[in-house]
Structure formats: structure tokens, C-alpha cells
């Protein structure tokens, strides 16, 4: 009897040796004349367990991880093909506390299905959202998205329905859906995981967006650092076309929609929506002044919806189960679920999708298990390179746009990077300035010149030169960057810098203070 084995094809699994594990399994099976069928699934998101190999047994899928090629003989010896006991056995993945505690909507299928299989996608609830969208029609699709309370998952948290309505109302012979898959924030990988693990979900979300606003063409703009995601997306687009789910008269309806994947070229600023549009057009990735909004004059000056991968992949669920169902999750004005990414110096790093409202401390200590190094946690940077460093005494902060904003912090794309005690926060502040200077699009002076000045100031501060005066100048410079920058690269770089400086003055050679603790 052929035994089915799942070995993820997620980039993280591959980087941890999944391809070698596949070869070892094939060799061991051949040796035993045991027929096996290896399915390359996406990742379940328990990334410390990758490669997480799952065997389909009579009781269901049994996981083993992290498996290295050298473990495979031993696994066969231990009878892992029938779920045998072994040090790496984790049991049923869905019963693992890391997964059992989650509320998975966007990532419900990721790691379970074969990402290249249209049949698998359908069998697991795929295209239910599109079917309902086709019954509802454009106006009611947007109404449903509005009811869901969905806010953009790319960083700014702008209500998705408002954006869509603007494009729907714009009159033009051509409109576009652009998916922002430029995921450049350190500590984030949710877009990558979904493109590699459930690419049809993004295709479905973009198709629904196209129908809602009257766009017939979509682009997924992603990074050159994501070759595996590009392959997976392109493969799925081909399959969807072959099944009549992209192209003319989708699923036999009156609507037509098709899409392409485009690759950036290593510029962080191209994640900013207008720089991204310029890059797609074949220009330098320079930020455009607004207005006009992309919704009015976007790609090639045509009305354009630009949304993050996670915004677009929330849409099929909102349509399938209703906006109210989605809005039932969350807190305050942050509705639904957020795929949170736990990374850096952390024991159990991975993807944790949950309703808004969970605290940072729960995420880092309870779910993430604290640091990988075993040293105490010092701080976490949340929201990528433009996000604040949050000290441990603020870990009761709930994951919610408004709560974070109240502390001068941001959720951004939901990435959490954990640092242990050994981290030098002055060095991290310097890095934030340096990153800004390297990645600045060059359009405005506070960002372009200011960040270079920031690096110089940090060098002086770290060398102990006129510390107090230089710290004061740095604070002023941050203020100038905040107020005078056109986009959030220059405008938000001060947040990691100032948070590092204010929470960890001792790293900047100033006397320590812990006033925040009393708040």
C-alpha cells in the first residue's frame, strides 16, 4: 500500500534541509520496497519544527520534526510510516498547543493541502468565497467587506472597503488590482508562507477584488528574495487558468480577470505603494506625492486597488462566511484575525494567526517560549524596521492598532522580532538610521540626508563623544524626520531610534531610568 508523506516545500523548510529529507525518504523507501507518495505541502507555521514531516496513518496525519536527512533511516527503523514512537514525533500537528491555540482563517489550509492542487483547494473550501461573490455582485461584495471591518494588513491599517469603493466609483476603461507582496520587513514571512502554501487563496482574493471594483488585470509584486514564492504563485496561476478560474468569463460568469507575478529588485522602499507602482511601470521606485491617490490615478494612471497579501487573502473568508462572522473576532476597531509572525531570538518561532487583542507578552513568552538563547528577553521590535522597540515592561500591550499607536508603536505587518539581554540598543538605533539611509528613495531631504546624519550622530554617541549634546541633536533630527518626510520610511525611522533611546538610555551611555515602569 502506498503511504502518503508530506514534506513542506516552504522556503523555510527548504532552507532547513527539506529537499535533502525528501531524497533520504525516497532512498529509504526504495531500499525497503515500500511505495510512498511524497506531497510537498506548505508549512504549518511551526517553523522551529521544520522540516516537519507528516505521515498519513490510520489515525490521521502524524508529525515528526525537525527532521534532518540523517534522521530518516532511524525514523524508518522506528516505524514512522505507521506513526511509530520516535524522539522527533510530535503527534497530530493540529493538536499541538501552538496550533490548537490559534484561530486560523487565512492560514486554515496552509500546510494541510498541496499548494499546486486545484482539487485540494476546492476540497478544503476554496472558491466558496468567489461563488458567493458572483451571486452578490460588486456593490454587495464591497458591503460585505465593509461589514467585516477589514483593515489593510500591509501596515497602515486603512479600511479596505473604502479603498475598494473609491476604485469602484472611478470611471475608467481599465482598472488594476495590485497585490503588495513586497514583504520587506525583517521578522515577517506571512505573505511568503501563504504564496508558497496556499497560492489559490490569493488568486481568489484578487479575483473577488477585481469583480468588486471592475478591474480585469492584477499584478502580484513580490521580492527577488522570494524565488520559491514566485514559482508557487506562477504555477498556481497557470493551474487556475487551465480550470477557467482566471482569464475570460471566470467560472462561466460575465467577469474576466487575469494576473501576473512581477519581481522587484532589492529595494525596500518599493513596498511603499506608490513607489511600488512606479517600479511596476518600469521606473525608479520613488515615492509619489499624494494626491492623486492610487485609487484615482494608480498604475499607468488608472484607478488601482493596492492591497497587501494578507488583506486580499482575508477576503475569500469574508465572502464565504459573511462580513459579520469575520467581525466577530478581534477588539475595538481591529476586527478579524491577524497572522502574527514570531521571529528573531525566540524558542518557538513561527506563524500564529489569532484574533486581535492577544498581548505581546503572551505571544513572546507563552507561545514563543522566550528566547532561543535562554537569556532573558530584553525587547521586541514589532512592525518591521520602522516599528518601535517595545521593552518587557510594556508586554501587556494588546495586539490592536490603537493600543500600539497610543504607545508610539505600530503593528505594521505583524512581525515580532525578539532580542535577548545581549542586544545593544544603541547599535540597533544606529542600524535603523543606516537602513533608512541605504533604502531612502531620495525624494525628501529629512529622510535622505537626515538618516545619514543620524548614523554619524550614533557613531559619536557610541564613541562617547559629547553624549548629551549629541543625544539632544538626535532627538531634534528625529522630530524633523517625523514631520518632514513624505512617506513612512523617513517618517517612522525615528520610532525604533527614539524607543531604543528612551527605554534603554544606559545603552546610549546615559543614566538608566525606569519611569515607564510606573505608568
Amino acid at each position, binding site marked *: 500500500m502506498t503511504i502518503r508523506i508530506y514534506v513542506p516545500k516552504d522556503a523555510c523548510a527548504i*532552507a532547513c534541509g527539506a529537499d535533502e529529507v525528501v531524497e533520504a525518504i525516497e532512498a529509504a523507501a526504495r531500499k525497503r520496497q515500500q511505495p510512498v507518495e511524497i506531497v510537498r505541502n506548505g508549512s504549518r507555521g511551526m*517553523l522551529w519544527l521544520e522540516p516537519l514531516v507528516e505521515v498519513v496513518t490510520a489515525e490521521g496525519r502524524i508529525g515528526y520534526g525537525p527532521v534532518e536527512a540523517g534522521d530518516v533511516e532511524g525514523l524508518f527503523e522506528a516505524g514512522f510510516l505507521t506513526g511509530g514512537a520516535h524522539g522527533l514525533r510530535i503527534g497530530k500537528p493540529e493538536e499541538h498547543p501552538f496550533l490548537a491555540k490559534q484561530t486560523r482563517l487565512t492560514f486554515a489550509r496552509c500546510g494541510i493541502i498541496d499548494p499546486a492542487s486545484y482539487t485540494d483547494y476546492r476540497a478544503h473550501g476554496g472558491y466558496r468565497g468567489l461563488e458567493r461573490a458572483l451571486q452578490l455582485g460588486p456593490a454587495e461584495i464591497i458591503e460585505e467587506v465593509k461589514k467585516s471591518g477589514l483593515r489593510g494588513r500591509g501596515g497602515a491599517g486603512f479600511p479596505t472597503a473604502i479603498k475598494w469603493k473609491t476604485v469602484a466609483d472611478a470611471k475608467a476603461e481599465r482598472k488594476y488590482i495590485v497585490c503588495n507582496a513586497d514583504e520587506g520587513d*525583517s521578522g515577517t514571512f506571512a505573505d511568503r508562507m501563504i504564496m508558497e502554501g496556499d497560492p489559490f487563496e490569493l488568486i481568489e482574493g484578487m479575483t473577488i477584488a477585481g469583480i468588486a471594483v471592475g478591474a480585469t488585470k492584477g499584478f502580484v509584486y513580490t521580492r527577488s528574495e522570494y524565488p520559491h514564492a514566485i514559482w508557487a504563485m506562477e504555477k498556481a496561476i497557470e493551474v487556475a487558468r487551465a480550470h477557467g478560474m482566471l482569464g475570460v468569463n471566470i467560472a462561466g460568469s460575465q467577469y474576466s480577470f487575469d494576473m501576473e507575478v512581477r519581481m522587484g529588485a532589492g529595494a525596500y522602499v518599493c513596498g511603499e505603494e506608490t513607489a511600488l507602482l512606479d517600479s511596476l511601470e518600469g521606473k525608479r521606485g520613488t515615492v509619489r506625492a499624494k494626491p492623486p491617490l492610487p485609487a484615482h490615478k494608480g498604475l499607468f494612471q488608472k484607478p488601482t486597488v493596492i492591497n497587501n497579501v494578507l488583506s486580499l487573502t482575508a477576503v475569500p473568508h469574508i465572502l464565504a462566511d459573511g462580513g459579520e462572522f469575520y467581525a466577530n473576532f478581534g477588539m475595538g476597531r481591529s476586527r478579524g484575525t491577524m497572522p502574527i509572525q514570531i521571529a528573531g531570538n525566540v524558542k518557538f518561532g513561527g506563524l500564529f494567526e489569532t484574533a486581535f487583542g492577544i498581548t505581546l507578552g503572551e505571544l513572546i513568552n507563552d507561545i514563543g517560549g522566550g528566547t532561543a538563547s535562554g537569556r532573558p528577553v530584553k525587547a521586541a521590535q514589532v512592525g518591521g524596521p520602522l516599528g518601535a522597540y517595545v521593552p518587557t515592561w510594556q508586554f501587556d500591550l494588546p495586539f490592536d492598532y490603537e493600543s500600539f499607536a497610543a504607545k508610539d508603536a505600530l503593528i505594521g505587518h505583524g512581525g515580532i522580532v525578539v532580542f535577548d539581554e545581549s542586544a545593544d540598543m544603541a547599535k540597533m538605533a544606529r542600524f535603523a538610521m543606516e537602513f533608512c539611509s541605504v533604502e531612502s528613495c531620495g525624494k525628501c531631504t529629512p529622510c535622505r540626508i537626515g538618516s545619514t546624519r543620524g548614523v554619524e550622530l550614533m557613531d559619536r554617541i557610541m564613541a562617547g563623544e559629547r553624549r548629551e549634546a549629541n543625544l539632544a541633536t538626535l532627538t531634534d533630527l528625529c522630530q524633523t524626520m517625523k514631520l518632514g518626510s513624505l512617506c513612512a520610511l523617513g517618517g517612522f525611522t525615528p520610532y525604533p531610534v527614539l524607543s531604543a533611546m528612551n527605554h534603554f538610555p544606559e545603552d546610549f551611555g546615559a543614566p538608566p531610568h525606569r519611569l515607564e515602569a510606573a505608568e
Partner: protein
Amino acid sequence: MPHYEPWSDERARAVIEEFSHLEGPLMPMLHAVQETFGHVPDAVVPMLAEMLNISRAEVHGVVTFYHDFRHEPAGHHVLKLCRAEACQAAGGDALADHAEHRLGCKLGETTADGRVTVEPIYCLGLCATAPSAMLDGKIVARLNERRLDALIAEAQS
């Protein structure tokens, strides 16, 4: 190890023309040129300008804006070390120092024998299994000194 073709006007034109039907073809064209020749040679700039009916200055501006596009060919192998925050938190600084020491050149440089170019990269999306690196097209996570030495040996071989 990646194999690149020697420059040829004719070949370049053919590579570029494959993308001429696209909306916004310049970026895909530049990627294709670099994939074929290993860098974006100056000679391709007037060719693109003419084909797309834009100025040479505009094409040049685009080529120089993006970190990925190389003006000169790289070493035989390219080792990219992730230097973004999550990889720094997981010990990436020490590994970068180690690599520079072993290769005898700084990040952004090529070894004297032209075998290895070592470069910083900012996030490979492998941040939960950091630190990460990429050798030519191959991605590697959970990097430590031992694994890094193996990568360096592979690149130098």
C-alpha cells in the same frame, strides 16, 4: 554555480524582446539581462532606451536605483548574508564578522581571487529560523559557524 553567457548584441536583443509585449516591461527585461549575462552591461542601456522609446538617462536611472542590478560581474559564487534585525538578534553579527575574516574581504566585496562575492541582504523571510544566508540560489537557515564554514568552503571550491 551559475553560468553566464558572454556579451552579444544579438543575444541581448533577443532576451529583451521576449518581454516587449508586457505592460511595464523594463524591470522584467533588466532581470532577464542580468540572468543571462550576470550583470547589466552599459551596452544594454541604449538598446533598452531605443526599444522602449525613453531616454538613456531614464534607463540608467532605473538600473542604478535597484540594489539587485550589478554594473560589474560578481565573483564566481555569491554569498549573501542576512543582516536584518531578526538575523542580528539571532547572532548574525558574529557570523558576518566570521565570514569577512575567513574570506579576507568585507561585505560588499569580492575575494582577491575573484571566486566569492559576499554581500549583505536584508531579510530572506526566514526570520523564525535565523540567521539566514543564500549561496547563489540556495537558501540556508539556522546558520551557525559550522554551517557557514561549509558554505564558504563550497563557494571557494
